[in-house]
C-alpha cells in the first residue's frame, strides 16, 4: 500500500496533521463566556454613574420594607404595644405573644430589612469592583455611597433592636461561604449600624439637591436614635450622652422645626416639610407599573378597608383624650389620629353616619352610612395616615394614596433629645424646653417639671400622643422596660399569660433562615 508515508518523510506528514489538530483545538478563549441577551444583567450594568443612580433608587425603593407590604405587619406590631385591638382573625398569635419561629410577620420584617441591606451592599460592592466608572466628580461618587451606607445603617438599626443577635452581611453572596454568615453579638450589630450611619452622616448633604433623598439630618437623627436604643435596650448608659449630642446637632442645624398643622405630617399636602427628617416617598400612579403607594387605608375603616385589621384601643382613646388643649378641645393629635364619635369627619362622613362603612364597593361610590346619625357611636377607627386631603370620590379600598410615610420626624428628635438629656444627667431645662415645643404645637398649656422622673413621665405620655400608629410605642415600651406593666394594665388575658419579657424582647429569627444557613442559631430565648 502506497501511503503518504512513502511520499513524504514520516515526521513531516505527522507534523502537518498535528498542526491541523492543534489549529482546530485552539478555539477562542472566551468560547464558554456567553452573554444573556434576553434580560438586563448585572454584568453589563454598573458601568456609568447613571447606572449607579438607578441602583441607589432601587435601595430607596426597598426601604419601604421597614414598614412591610400591606401594612399588616406594622399594624399588628403596633397593636402589641397596646395602641390597637386586633379585630382581624388573622395574626392573633403575633398579637397575643403566642407566635413561634415560623411567624410570617416577624419573618417578613427580617427578610425586608436584609433585602434593603442586600441592595445597599450590592451598590457598595459594585462601586468597589467597577473601578473604571467615569464619575462626573468625586462628590457624585461619595453621595451614592453615603446613601447606601445610610440605608445599610438603617437596616442594622432595625435588626439590632428587633431581632438582636443577627448575622452581619456586608457583601453580596455568591458562594457557600458568603451564604452562611455567623451570628454577631447585639453590640456588634449596633456597632455596624453606627459605623454605617457615621459614614452616611459624613457624606450626605444637609440640603440634598433632590427632595426626598436622604440628608445629613436624617443620618444624624438615626445615629442618635441608634445610640438611644442601644443605651436603653442594652443598659449601656454611656450612649445616652452620645445620643443627646447627635440630636442636639440636628436641632442646631436650623433647618428643622415643627409644622404648625399636625396633620401635615400624614397627608400628601405638605410632604418633605421642615418636620420631616426621613420619609418613605409614595405616589399613587396606576398608569405606571409598580410605583410605591400608601395602602394603610385598606386596613383602617369599613368601606375603605378590605377588612378592618386594627382599631384604636379603649386604653389609647382614654389616654389621648384626657388632656384638653388651651381652647378646651381635644388634643389635635387625638383628633387627627382617631376617627371617633365626636371627633372629625373623615372624607366628609361624620363618624355616626359611618354605619356599614364608607360605602365604597367595587370602586362604585354611593352614599352609604346612616344619615340619621344612628350609626355606631362606640370605639374608633384609625384616621392617621388616611390621606384626608383626598376627596371622598377618590377613596376606595383598592386604590392607594399618595401620602408619604414619615419615618423620622423632628418631634421625635425633640422628645428623644429630652429623654437622652435626662438619662445622661444633662440639663433638665434643655430637656423641658424641647418637650415644650411639642406641647406648644398641640396647643397644650404651659407646664413645668421639677424632676427628671416627672419630665420622663411627661415624655412617655407625649410620645404616645405624638407617635401612636407610627410604630414607636411598642419599642419604646420595651426600651423603658414598661411593656410587661402595660400588658398587665390593659392587655388581654392571653397576652397577660403568654408575655415573657426575656423572650419577647426580640423577635425570633425566621425558621427559614436557620434552615438555610447552618451557621445560624436561633436566639436563646426562642
Amino acid at each position, binding site marked *: *500500500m502506497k*501511503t*503518504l*508515508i512513502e511520499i513524504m518523510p514520516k515526521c513531516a506528514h*505527522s507534523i502537518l*496533521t498535528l498542526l*491541523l*489538530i492543534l489549529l482546530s483545538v485552539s*478555539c477562542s478563549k472566551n*468560547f*464558554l*463566556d*456567553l*452573554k*444573556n441577551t*434576553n*434580560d*438586563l444583567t*448585572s*454584568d453589563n*450594568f454598573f458601568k456609568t454613574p447613571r*447606572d449607579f443612580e*438607578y*441602583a441607589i*433608587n*432601587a435601595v430607596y*425603593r426597598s426601604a419601604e420594607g421597614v414598614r412591610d407590604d400591606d401594612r399588616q405587619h406594622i399594624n399588628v406590631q403596633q397593636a402589641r404595644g397596646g395602641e390597637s385591638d386586633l379585630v382581624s382573625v388573622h395574626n392573633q398569635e403575633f398579637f397575643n405573644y403566642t407566635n413561634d419561629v415560623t411567624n410570617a410577620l416577624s*419573618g417578613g420584617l427580617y*427578610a425586608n430589612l*436584609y*433585602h434593603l441591606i442586600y441592595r445597599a451592599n450590592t451598590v457598595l460592592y459594585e462601586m468597589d469592583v467597577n473601578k473604571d466608572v467615569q464619575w462626573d466628580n468625586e462628590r457624585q461618587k461619595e453621595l451614592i455611597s453615603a446613601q447606601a451606607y445610610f440605608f445599610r445603617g438603617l437596616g442594622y438599626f432595625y435588626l439590632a433592636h428587633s431581632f438582636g443577635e443577627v*448575622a452581619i*452581611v456586608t457583601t453580596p*453572596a*455568591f*458562594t*457557600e461561604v*458568603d451564604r*452562611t*454568615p455567623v451570628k454577631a453579638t447585639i453590640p456588634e450589630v449596633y456597632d455596624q449600624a453606627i459605623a454605617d450611619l457615621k459614614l452616611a452622616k459624613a457624606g450626605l448633604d444637609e440640603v440634598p439637591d*433632590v427632595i*426626598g433623598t436622604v440628608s445629613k439630618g436624617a443620618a444624624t437623627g438615626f445615629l442618635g436614635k441608634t445610640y438611644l436604643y442601644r443605651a436603653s435596650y442594652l443598659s449601656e448608659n454611656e450612649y445616652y450622652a452620645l445620643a443627646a449630642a447627635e440630636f442636639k446637632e440636628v436641632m442646631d442645624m436650623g433647618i428643622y422645626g415643627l409644622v404648625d398643622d399636625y396633620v401635615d405630617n400624614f397627608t*400628601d399636602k405638605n*410632604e*418633605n416639610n421642615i418636620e420631616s427628617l426621613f420619609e418613605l*416617598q409614595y*405616589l399613587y*400612579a396606576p398608569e*405606571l407599573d*409598580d*410605583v*410605591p403607594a400608601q395602602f394603610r387605608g385598606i386596613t383602617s375603616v369599613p368601606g375603605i378597608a378590605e377588612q378592618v385589621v386594627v382599631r384604636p384601643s379603649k386604653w389609647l382613646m382614654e389616654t389621648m383624650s384626657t388632656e384638653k388643649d388651651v381652647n378646651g378641645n381635644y388634643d389635635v393629635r387625638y383628633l387627627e389620629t382617631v376617627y371617633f364619635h365626636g371627633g372629625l369627619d373623615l372624607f366628609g362622613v361624620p363618624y355616626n353616619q359611618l354605619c356599614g362603612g364608607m360605602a365604597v364597593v367595587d370602586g362604585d361610590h354611593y352614599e352609604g352610612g346612616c344619615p340619621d346619625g344612628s350609626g355606631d357611636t362606640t370605639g374608633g377607627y384609625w384616621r392617621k395616615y388616611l390621606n384626608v386631603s383626598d376627596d371622598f370620590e377618590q377613596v376606595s379600598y383598592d386604590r392607594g394614596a*399618595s401620602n408619604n410615610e414619615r419615618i423620622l420626624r423632628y418631634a421625635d428628635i425633640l422628645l428623644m433629645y429630652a429623654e437622652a438629656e435626662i438619662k445622661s444627667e444633662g440639663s433638665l431645662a434643655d430637656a423641658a424646653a424641647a418637650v415644650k415645643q411639642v406641647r406648644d404645637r398641640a396647643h397644650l398649656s404651659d407646664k413645668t417639671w421639677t424632676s427628671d422622673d416627672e419630665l420622663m413621665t411627661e415624655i412617655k405620655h407625649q410620645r404616645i400622643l405624638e407617635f401612636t400608629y407610627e410604630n414607636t410605642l411598642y419599642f419604646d415600651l420595651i426600651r423603658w422596660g414598661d411593656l410587661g406593666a402595660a400588658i398587665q394594665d390593659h392587655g388581654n388575658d392571653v397576652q397577660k399569660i403568654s408575655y415573657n419579657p426575656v423572650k419577647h424582647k426580640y423577635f425570633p429569627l*425566621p425558621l*427559614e*433562615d436557620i*434552615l*438555610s*444557613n447552618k451557621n*445560624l442559631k436561633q436566639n436563646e430565648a426562642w
Partner: protein
Amino acid sequence: MKLTVLLLTTGFLTVSATGVSQNINFSGKEVPLETVFSEVKKQTGFVFLFSQSVLADTKPVTIEVSNVPLSTFLDLVCKNQPIKYKIRSKSIFISAKPITESSNGQLTSDGTFDILKDTLIDVRGRAVNTNGSPLRGVSIVRKGTTTGTFTDDQGNYSLSNVPANATLQFSFVGMKMQEIAIGNKAVINVVMEVVEAGMNEVIVTGYSTTAKKNLTSSVASADVESMQKKAVVDVTQALQGNVSGVNITAIGGNPGEDMVINIRGLSSLSGETTPLILVDGVQVEGGLRNINPNDIKSIQVLKDASSAAVYGSRAANGVILVTTKKGEQNLRAKVTYNDYFSSQVPYKGISVTNSKEYTSILQKMYGNDLSGADNAPQAALDYIADPGNFSDFNWQEAIYRPAFMQAHDLSVSGGGPSGTYRISLGNVSQNGIALHTKYNRTNVRANSEFNVSNFIKIGQTFSYARSLFKREPNAYGRGLFYHAIRMYPYFQPKDQNGNWQESDDYWGGGTERSVESGIRNPLAFINKLWDAAEVGNDLAMSGYAEITILRGLTYKINGAYAQIDRSEWEKYSAKGEEFSDYYYSDDNSYSRSKNKSYNWNIDNLLRFQRKIGKHNLDVTVGYVAQKWYSDELGGYKWNFTSDQTSSLDAPGGMDPDTWSSSTEHALLSYLGQAFYSYDDRYLVTVNFRRDGSSRFHTGYRWGNFPGVSLGWRLSNEKFWEKSGLVNAITDFKIRAGYGILGRQNLGDYDYIATLENEYAVFDNDPRLSLITGNPVSYDTKWEELVSKTVGIDYELFNGKVNGSFDYYNNETRGMIIGVPISPSVGGGVRQGNLGEITNKGFEMTINYKNKIGDFSYNVGFNLSTQKTILVNFGSDLSTQEDELGGDASNLPEWDVEHITELHKGRGLSEFWLIKTNGLFKNDEEAQQYLNKNGEMIQPFAKAGDIKFIDYNGDGQITAEGDRQFCGTGIPKVYAGFNFTASYKQIDLYIGATGAFGQVIYNTTRYLTEQNHGFGNFSTALLDAFDPVSNPNSNIPRLNPDDIGENGNTRAATDRYIEKGNYVKIRNIELGYTLPEKIEKRIKMSSARIFARVQNLANITRYTGPDPEIGGTPTNWQAHPSLYTAGIPRDFTPQARSYQFGVNVTF
C-alpha cells in the same frame, strides 16, 4: 515451480470436491495452529498429519469465519505461513512450503517467494445465499483494485486474466463480505451469509468501536431488524421492549406525540431527563421522532457511566447512538422500495349511561320531577317529560374515528472502489383516531463516503425532515376524551338548524368555573372554533475526514450541524354568544410563533490501534467543541375581520402581543478512551472526559468524568476448554464498571444576575430603578451520577443462546435542585448541589435461535427492574402543589389534586390515600364505627356509604392524617419479548412488552362515578347500593348531598386505585417472500409482502382505556413521572391497526 502449481491445483480441486459439504465455523484470535487443527477435526472429522517441526515457525492465527468451505479456511490458516496442505480422502497433510524461486526471484512481502504472481488465470463461480438460492448483483472485486464484476440473474460470474495470487472480495448489502484468495483456483463459489448480530457484532462505544465480545460495559444493541418490522412512525416506538433497561412510554395514542425515554430510572429531578441521542455523530435534540426508521442501520444504547463517560455531560441519562445506512463498496446501484398501508381502528370507549339511564339516576337522587335538585338542567326535565323529543348521541364514537395511514420509502445505494453512497426518500402520513390529529413527515437522507487516497477518507451525512403535526385540541382546557365521557347523552352536536351548539345552563352546564362548566361540545370546538398546526423543518448534517498518519494511527475530524425548526400557528374564530365562556380565547384571533434550536459540534479525534502479540491496544483522544442555540419569535392579535386569517397583517387585528427570546450555551471537552485487552481474555476500558460548560461560573466550570470497566472472558481460559465447559458455554465474560457522569441541569445564564426594574419616588416624581435581583450562585457545579455496574455476557451451544445479565447501582450526588437562599443574604432560590437520588436494578436479556430444517426461529426476551429512591430532594415531603409554589391555581385543571406525594427516602409518584373498607351494609354498621370517645368516626354515614380507615386513630377521617401508601405509579419491572421465525418463503414476527408492579389511579372512573353534578355517569352507577333493592352492591348509594356528608366521591381514597400490570401484544407480522422464479420474472432481486397487526391486545386487569400511562395531550407538565405517573388524564389510547405492505429490491 510447475510441479508446485500442479500439486496445489490438484489440492484445491480435491478440496472443492469434498469441501462443499465440509464447511467450517471458526472464531478466534491468536490461536495456535494446533488448536485450529483440532477444531477442524472436531467439526469435519478430518485428520491432520504433520510433524511438530513443521509447525515450529508458524504463527498463531486470527480468523473469524462461519460456514466457509474447508479449503477456503485452510487457505486462510496457511496464508503467510511457511506451510502448505494437501487433502487426501479424510486426511490433511501439512508440510513445509518449499522455498522456491519465482520466475523473477522476487521476495513477496511476507517473506516467501510468490510463485503465482505472474500467472494470469480465468476465474468463474456462483454466489448463492444460505438457502442455496442464487444471488444477483453480488459484487466481485479484485482486492486493492477497481477491477471486478457482478453476478448475473443465476448468481454466476466470470473474470478473465486475474493474477493467480489475487484475492477476490465478494460483497452484497446486508451480507458478510468475504475475501477469498484465488490461489490458482478456476472456480470459486461462495455462500453469502446474512450479517447476524452476535458476539462479533461491531459495537460503537463512544468515539470508537469494539467487538461485542470485548465489551466491558453495559452497551445494548437494539435488534434493528425486528424493529423495522414494527411499522412505526417513530423509531422510539420500535425501541419499546427491544432493549432491557430502556423504558419507553407513549404519552398517548396520538400520532406525532413525543415519547418518554428513560434509561435505568429517573436519576435527576430537574432539566433534561431524556438520553443523549446522536445520529451519525450529530446531536439530535428533538428525539428520534423525525427519523425515518428504514434509514437506520444500528442503534446502540450506552447505559452505564463506564461506557457513556466519554460523552460526559448529557450522557448521565444514557446515550442512544444511531447509525444510518451507508452504501457498500463495489456494488452496483440497488433500489429498495418499502411501503405499507394501514387502517387504525378506533378505541371502543368506556361504558357511560344513555339518556334514559342518565335521567333515571338523576330521578333516583332528586325525585321523579328532579325537584330535589338545585338548578336541575331544564333539558333533563324536558327529556323526562317527553323522551321522544331527544335522541341519544354517542360522543365517544364521535371523537374517535377509523384512521388511515400510509408510509413509503425509497432508497438507492451503491458504491464503487472510490466511494459509496446511499440516498433515501421517505414519506409517512398518519391520521390519528382522535379527531383533528395528524402527522405527516417527509424525510430525505443522503450519505456518502469517499476514499481520496489510501490514507484519506472523507464522508458526509445529510438529513432533512419536514413534518406537519396537528395535535389533539386542548378543547376548553381538556382533551377530547374528557368531554366525550362527560357530555350529556341527549345532547346533539348541532341544533335543528344545523348550527353547532354549545352546552349551557339548559343542558346542565354553567358559565362559572366548575367541573360542570368544563363540559363542552368538542366537535364544535374543532369544527367551528379552533384550528392549529405545527410545521417542523429538521436538518442534520455532518462531514468528516479520516487521515491515516501512520499504521494504526488515524486522525478524524468531524463537523456536525443539527437544526430543529418549528413553526406553529393557532387560530380561534368568533365564538358568538352561545360560546361565551372563559375557556375560550379572543374572537378571530391568530397567533403564530417560530422556534428554532440548532447546535453544532466539531470533534477532533486521534485514534491509535495496535496489536502486538496477544496485546491489543486501542486508544482514542479527542477534543470537542459544541454549541447550542435557541431562538423564538412569536406574535398574536385578535379581532381580525375574518376567521380565515393566516397572517398577523390581516385587516382588523388589534392588541398585538409579541415575544422573543434567544439563548445559547457551549461546551468544550477533552476526552480519552482506551481499550486494552490481553489475549481476548483480560479486557480493560478506561474513559475520561473533561467538560467545561458555559452554564457554570468561571471557577466551577470544569468537571472531570472518568469511567473504567474491566472484563474477563473466562471462556478463553485454558481451564474452560479443558473442563469441557466450552461445549456448553461457548463464550462467557464477566465485567464490572464504574464511572462518573455529569449533568448541567441549569438555566443557560443562571450565574449571571438579572436586574430588577421598579420605580422609586422622589417628591412625587417616579424614577426608574434597576438593580441586581436575588443573589445568584457562583459555586453551583456539575451534578454527578456515580454509576456502578456488574454484568455477564454469555453465549451457549455455539451461539444458539446468548444474552447478558446486569446489575446496576446509580447514585446522583450533588443533584442540582432549587435551594432557598437565607433571607439574611438576600433571599430567593438558587440552584444548588444538594439533592441525592439513587437507582438500582437488574437487567437481563436472553436470545435463543434455532433451525430445524427450513424452519428457523429466534426468541428474544428481556427484563429489567428499577427502584428509584429520593435520598434528598430538599424537603421531607412534597406534593405537586408544593412543586408549583404552593399555589393551587398553578395546578393544571387536574381532576384529582394531591393524590401523590414524594417522601424523603422513598420513591416517585407514590399514591398516599385514605384506604377504604367496602360499604356499610346497614345504618347500624355505620353507627357502630366509633372512635374511643364513643363518637361516630363518620358522623354522616348511612347504609351504602363507604367505610374509610381512620389510619392515625384520631377518631375522624381527614385527608391530612389518614393517608396511607397505596402503591406507586411507576412500574417495578419492564419486560420485552420478540419472536421471529421463518419457514421457506414465510416469515413471522411477534413483539410484546409488559410492565409490572405499578398501580393506576383510574381517573376515568373517578370522573364518571361521581353522582353529583349533571355530567354523564358511568353505567356502574346504575348498580348503586340500595338498602332494599340492591343491598349487596359495592357502588355507594346515590346521595345528592354526598360532598357535605360522607364524601364517598372524595378523590383521595384508594377506591380508584387499580393494579396497572399489563402485557401488550404490540406487533404481529406475517411476511411472504416471493419465490425466486417469480422475482426474476418481475425483474426484482427480492420482493416481500406482509400483513401486520399493531396493538392487538392489552392483557391487563386495569379497567380504564389504556394501562400504559403517559402524559396528557395538553403538555403542561414539567416532570410527568415525579408526581403523575399512574394518573391518566384525557389521553387517547393507542389504537389497534391493520397494515399491509411490500418491500422490494431491484
